[in-house]
């Protein structure tokens, strides 16, 4: 029994951490945030070189064939570095495609997705606050998809979409290509410029059915929850460190503010909430890899808990910085926005806690 990272996993995490430090400085993040589509092709290509887009994809399709825990370690570093781009949607969509196990679609899309040459996005939620594959209304009939997906991460720049929809047999997964007729993509203005969202409208859009049932979509959703939890952990840890460093240098009343016990205790409380919660997303990721029957509930608990802690950490970090923390120039605002996205996307904390209660079989 071992509840820790392997040396390979530590190496992977360190490698991605060094990559974010050298390739993703805040000046570059700010340029991307202010760009029209939020996508820096060079940055994504650089990620392709270190294998990130294909981490989960089996080696037979040109990927690294690694585990969800490995991918979550990348997400942690991305949260820490506030890395912009289509990572989340691409990861969920590739996971759905792998789980769908449709040989022709996998052969065609996984190899370019593994290198990052093609970007995928995953379209699930429809009704406000609902992310259950069994509850989608988008339907395939008369040769095309019909429906609306109002909040799809990375959709604007995706080359193909994995869409959760239904037909006469029930829910399933469909693959839609970027230039398919009857597909309208409307970019939305979001609070977090590092992860863009768009609304997708299907009006008789041709699509290829790649799976029946909900299991592949549920797995992709649960993966998304774990990646958001890991992102939130990395982001919160970074805010904590920024605030610690600020407190050690900012002088008021003739000494650094780190000397004040009020400051010290607030930082200690943030650390006390945050540090043990690392194990929650580790375990949820491990469950997706090894204990699938436990994964949905642990993914829900990890997402709800970590994203709330991220929010709390950002709030106290800004308060401890004082006025400077409230400015656009100071980098803390990037994580403030990041935390908003992590908390809201795929459903808020309360929704996932209720799901966890239901999944535990508690009578409602």
């Amino acid at each position, binding site marked *: *029994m*071992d*509840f*820790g990272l392997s040396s390979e996993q530590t190496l992977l995490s360190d490698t991605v951490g060094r990559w974010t430090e050298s390739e993703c400085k805040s000046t570059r993040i700010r340029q991307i945030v202010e760009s029209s589509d939020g996508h820096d092709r060079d940055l994504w290509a650089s990620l392709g070189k270190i294998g990130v887009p294909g981490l989960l994809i089996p080696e037979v399709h040109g990927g690294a064939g690694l585990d969800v825990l490995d991918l979550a370690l990348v997400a942690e570093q991305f949260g820490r570095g506030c890395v912009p781009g289509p990572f989340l949607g691409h990861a969920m969509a590739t996971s759905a495609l792998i789980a769908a196990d449709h040989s022709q679609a996998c052969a065609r899309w996984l190899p370019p997705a593994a290198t990052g040459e093609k970007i995928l996005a995953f379209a699930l939620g429809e009704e406000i606050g609902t992310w259950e594959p069994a509850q989608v209304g988008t339907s395939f009939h008369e040769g095309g998809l019909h429906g609306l997906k109002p909040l799809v991460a990375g959709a604007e720049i995706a080359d193909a979409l994995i869409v959760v929809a239904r037909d006469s047999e029930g829910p399933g997964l469909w693959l839609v290509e970027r230039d398919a007729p009857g597909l309208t993509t409307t970019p939305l203005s979001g609070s977090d410029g590092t992860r863009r969202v768009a609304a997708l409208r299907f009006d008789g859009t041709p699509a290829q059915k790649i799976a029946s049932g909900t299991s592949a979509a549920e797995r992709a959703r649960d993966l998304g929850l774990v990646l958001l939890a890991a992102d939130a952990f990395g982001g919160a840890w970074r805010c904590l460190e920024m605030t610690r460093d600020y407190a050690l240098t900012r002088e008021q009343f003739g000494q650094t503010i780190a000397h004040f016990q009020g400051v*010290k205790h607030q930082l200690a409380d943030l650390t006390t909430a945050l*540090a*043990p919660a690392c194990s929650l997303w580790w375990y949820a990721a491990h469950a997706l890899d090894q204990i699938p029957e436990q994964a949905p509930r642990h993914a829900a608990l990890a997402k709800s808990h970590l994203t709330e802690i991220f929010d709390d950490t950002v709030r106290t970090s800004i308060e401890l910085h004082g006025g400077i923390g409230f400015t656009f120039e100071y980098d803390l605002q990037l994580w403030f926005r990041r935390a908003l996205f992590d908390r809201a996307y795929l459903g808020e904390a309360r929704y996932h806690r209720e799901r966890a209660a239901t999944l535990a079989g508690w009578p409602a």
Partner: protein
Amino acid sequence: MNLSYSEAYQAFRAEVRAFLTANWTDADRASDPAPDPVKASLGSVVRADPRASEFRRQAIAAGYLYRQVPRRYGGAEQPADTLKATIITEEFKRAKAPAEILGQGPSMLVPTLLAHGTEEQRERFVEPTLLGQIRWCQGYSEPGAGSDLASLRASGVLDGDHWLVNGQKTWTSNAAEAKWMFALIRTEPGAPKHDGITYMLIDMKTPGIEVRPLRQLNGAAHFSEVFFTDVRVPRTSIVGERGRGWSVSRSTLKAERALIGNAGFARQIFDGTLALAQLTEVRGRKAIEDAVIRDRLTDLESRLLAAELNGYRLLTTNARGEDPGIFSLVAKLHTSTLFYDIARLAMDISSDRGLLAPGEPTAPFSGMLFEPYMTYYALAIGGGAPNIQRNVIGERGLGLPRDARL
């Protein structure tokens, strides 16, 4: 990361289960009042009758209890294996068999004696302490020395072959039942305050010791004040060198934080609270069906899982010989706060019946969940009050400047 039970571990579980079936019978179980892990954590409920001691000896011989303690001092001396330890805990709990005693003696004094004690002290005290035959109390805090423990004033003056001890200790758990006390006594009055303290073992039957119970806010009296008037303690009854008691006590305090940081107590009270929510009907509806209660329960469960899994992480870093760093420093504050929040939810689920005292039959669960609500304060304050924990986390964990200390 590998949490699976391999065939070897499944076989180990079967072995433990067979041992328990053979050695701890229904008759034994029936004679055992259900142990309360919360009280056991404070050392107040320990089954240490001859039958329990006999069973513990068998379990130690089989390698199941006190696995870190060397055989020559009465332990099982087994290689560290967190999964085996988990299996043993689960199976002993299932069989309601006497497990390791979680009191201050086995959890705090024994590690200190193993690290700093003389051969004679280890041989005399370790085994009977592990078996619950010698119960200990801790003589650290004084009326004027709480969070600033090193300002303590109880004094020991060498008089021939004995120390002459005078002074007062307070907040002493189980002083009335304990046979022995491990205490911090100032023996070098001229030295800087951290350098003048000696770690002493004091027989509570020695003339000149007076124990006065202190009633707590929950009405119980786990604690006492202990007064020393010309108490004669043998010269050799000290652990570590004279004047080095502060550093000796640090290892004990670390053990106390680890004991209180253990998520087991929080799991116990969470499971009780979940059962309470499923059984309690308030305003015509089961509490578990209430959206707010469900939200609070799952929120607390997330924190509980974080505490438990962080415990696994610490066991793993320990087994690998790595430094757990900040993940260890936060455990006590995290778990004690969690414990309170779970207990508070239990009180809320009990609705207006929450005001009924423990033992009142018309209260949900006979009011037994009131006890952990109060026990929180002992968990939070024992081993260092919350603000002391925050200082430790800020200073040792985050590298913030130390508070001014005089």
